[in-house]
């Protein structure tokens, strides 16, 4: 059987479903191919928030803010509920030096017009009555800059809403070959277990698996799987009122800052960054970490213990709450921490939209819309040339 589409999107995670939705909305006859089920990869094995305050000042933050606001617009527009909620975010600073560094960051963001502010210990304890009383302070982002969604429902929402514009999704689809025109090297068709699919446009949204698709057309896409783990609590009181993250972790990762958190070797070795959020079902999600483990997504007991140890430093009452489940997923890691949202000069009709690491959920609506602009040959809403694939050739 041969099918023909204007555009074929590969990968039905938060990025692929958004791209597929936006292309269908623009009137392209679009197919979404997924090797597993919708949201079966990273987008169902992650946390559930979109923030501006974990982004570098500048374009990174701008994209985040755009996406967050766009999410709200979609939540109103879509019939499919994806548990959109605005909430505040606290980047908690364990010590004075962390607080000072957070303040520097805040000033930069304030200069760009983002209303972040510092809260000191007393106010923090009022905002978060269950937090350890000795936490120095926090960087607060109001709900204008932080949202929560159900990540897998976001994927399903894009697919279901896309169907209204004729989007067709093919799950459990094995792509065996991508055919290029021998003369022009442009995209011609794909061979799959559903048969041959003719198309002039392929958008590779396969996240951590994007390099596999890249290889089929001779491209080396520099994305690596990076594992992250979260713990799920039993249903309980909402211990926190805001999304909570630790600032010290971000600081210890900044280039050029010689900062070391006062943490145990286990926490250090497991690369733990504490974060906590409540869900609409009243379970708590406790995270998290990042480790390179290939595509092995089995959870590790030492990681779990390390997450718990770090979480108890900030929320001692977690000791009395049971963990009911853990999960790990891979994040598509790019060495410069920026996604690839781009066409490919050497292969007309081939596009890459992947490598969002931990920002895929946050950037999903923004990315889908910009990718649609690129595919349609239009200008993007603002300059995202930093996300060009060509940057790796230089």
């Amino acid at each position, binding site marked *: 059987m041969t099918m023909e589409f204007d555009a074929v999107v590969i990968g039905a995670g938060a990025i692929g479903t958004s791209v597929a939705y936006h292309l269908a909305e623009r009137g392209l006859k679009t197919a979404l191919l997924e090797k597993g089920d919708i949201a079966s990869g990273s987008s169902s094995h992650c946390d559930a928030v979109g923030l501006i305050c974990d982004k570098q000042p500048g374009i990174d933050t701008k994209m985040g803010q755009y996406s967050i606001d766009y999410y709200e617009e979609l939540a109103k527009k879509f019939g499919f509920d994806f548990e959109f909620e605005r909430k505040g975010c606290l980047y908690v600073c364990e010590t004075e030096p962390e607080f000072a560094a957070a303040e520097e960051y805040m000033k930069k963001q304030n200069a760009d017009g983002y209303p972040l502010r510092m809260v000191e210990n007393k106010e923090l304890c009022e905002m978060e009555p269950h937090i350890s009383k000795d936490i120095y302070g926090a960087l607060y982002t109001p709900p204008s800059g932080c949202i929560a969604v159900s990540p897998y429902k976001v994927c399903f929402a894009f697919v279901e809403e896309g169907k209204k514009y004729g989007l067709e999704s093919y799950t459990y689809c094995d792509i065996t070959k991508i055919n290029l025109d021998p003369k022009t090297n442009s995209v011609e068709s794909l061979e799959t277990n559903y048969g041959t699919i003719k198309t002039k446009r392929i958008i590779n949204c396969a996240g951590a698996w994007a390099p596999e698709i890249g290889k089929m057309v001779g491209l080396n896409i520099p994305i690596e799987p990076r594992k992250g783990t979260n713990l799920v609590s039993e249903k309980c009181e909402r211990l926190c009122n805001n999304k909570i993250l630790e600032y010290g972790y971000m600081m210890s990762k900044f280039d050029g800052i010689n900062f070391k958190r006062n943490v145990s070797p286990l926490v250090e070795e497991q690369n733990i960054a504490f974060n906590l959020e409540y869900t609409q079902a009243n379970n708590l999600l406790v995270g998290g970490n990042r480790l390179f483990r290939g595509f*092995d997504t*089995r*959870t*590790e*007991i*030492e990681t779990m*213990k390390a997450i718990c140890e770090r979480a108890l430093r900030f929320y001692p009452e977690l000791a009395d709450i049971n963990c009911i489940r853990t999960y790990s997923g891979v994040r598509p890691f790019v060495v410069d921490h920026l996604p690839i949202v781009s066409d490919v000069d050497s292969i007309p009709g081939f596009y890459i939209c992947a490598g969002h690491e931990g920002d895929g959920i946050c950037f999903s609506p923004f990315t889908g819309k910009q990718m649609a602009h690129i595919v349609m040959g239009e200008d993007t809403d603002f300059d995202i040339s930093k996300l060009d694939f060509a940057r790796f050739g230089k």
Partner: protein
Amino acid sequence: MLERDVLVVGAGPAGLAASIEAAKAGADVLLVDLNMKPGGQLFKQIHKFFGSSAHRSGTRGFDIGLKLLEEAKEAGVEIWLQSTVVGAFPGNLIAIEKGVDGGAKEVITLKSKKVIIATGASENVVRFKGWTTPGVMGAGAAQTMINVNHVKPGKKIVMVGSGNVGLIVSYQLMQAGCDVVALIEAAPKIGGYAVHAAKIRRAGVPIYTKHTVVEAIPGEDGTVCKVVIAQVDDHFNPIPGTEETIEADTVTIGAGLKPATDMVKLEKCQLTFNGPFGGFIPLHNDKMETSKSGVYVAGDATGVEEANTALEEGKIAGISAVESLGLISPKEAEKRRIEIWDRLEALRMGPFGERRQQEKDNILKEYEEKIGTAVEMD
């Protein structure tokens, strides 16, 4: 992280026997069990065992249990009670939620060179209207209540199932002072040994063959107060119009057991379905090793049988584990395994046993065909 030579999960007859064998050979053995006391079901078996003298016939279950505990202590087996395996992790790490003083729990990460799974079995349920009403329970649970905890589950009992568990527990419930008002069996004949059935009959318990429970009716307090039974046709479907209502406050269900395979699944051992042994069981060879190298099984977890076969299988698992640790010679291990398999064959005789012997042979054969040699896994 804690390290041990051998982890044994489940301190019933299989687990205790495995631990003793391994510890006697010099292995560092940790035995964990989720209950407050070790011994598995042995301590609720107040009846005398059948079988040959080599298998302690005439001995009561709890006496066997006491002896095993003593041997385990002498051999230096470390026992953690109220402790549960909560996960198997990459690198062959096992997480154990350890019960510590004061009812608190602590999660311990263990790296064990060998693992022996002796997790036993769980009771099957029969579903009917009202089967979740308080007062409906497994026959094994009722037996634990009377013989271990010394608490009567109720005053008037309807026992469902006439296998040996149904028969023995009915009798023990009467010994404990309960009134067994009916014994219900869907088949046309009693399932268990005639000697047990005769005891019940003599005591005047009405036995309803070709019957089933159709409803447990709760009273004002929400617990069972009436039980509706009915005759069944040849396909075990209730025949309308044959319903009878019995005044009773407890329904105990002795509908057989199924192997507890949760831990085996955690370890990703290959399973096979075996009806006579009670459901899915781990494939294993004559060393009791599963498809995963270094992981052994024994007792009801490998197919539901009884305490004596569990004991013998436990010994094989223990011997094989220490053999692969190099603590005893392959020659010695093989010699002892052959002796034990001979004894197992003697246990698997008679109308019930022959079938099990045949199935056991099939399982060993299936292992050779499908697996051959256990696979190293991380």
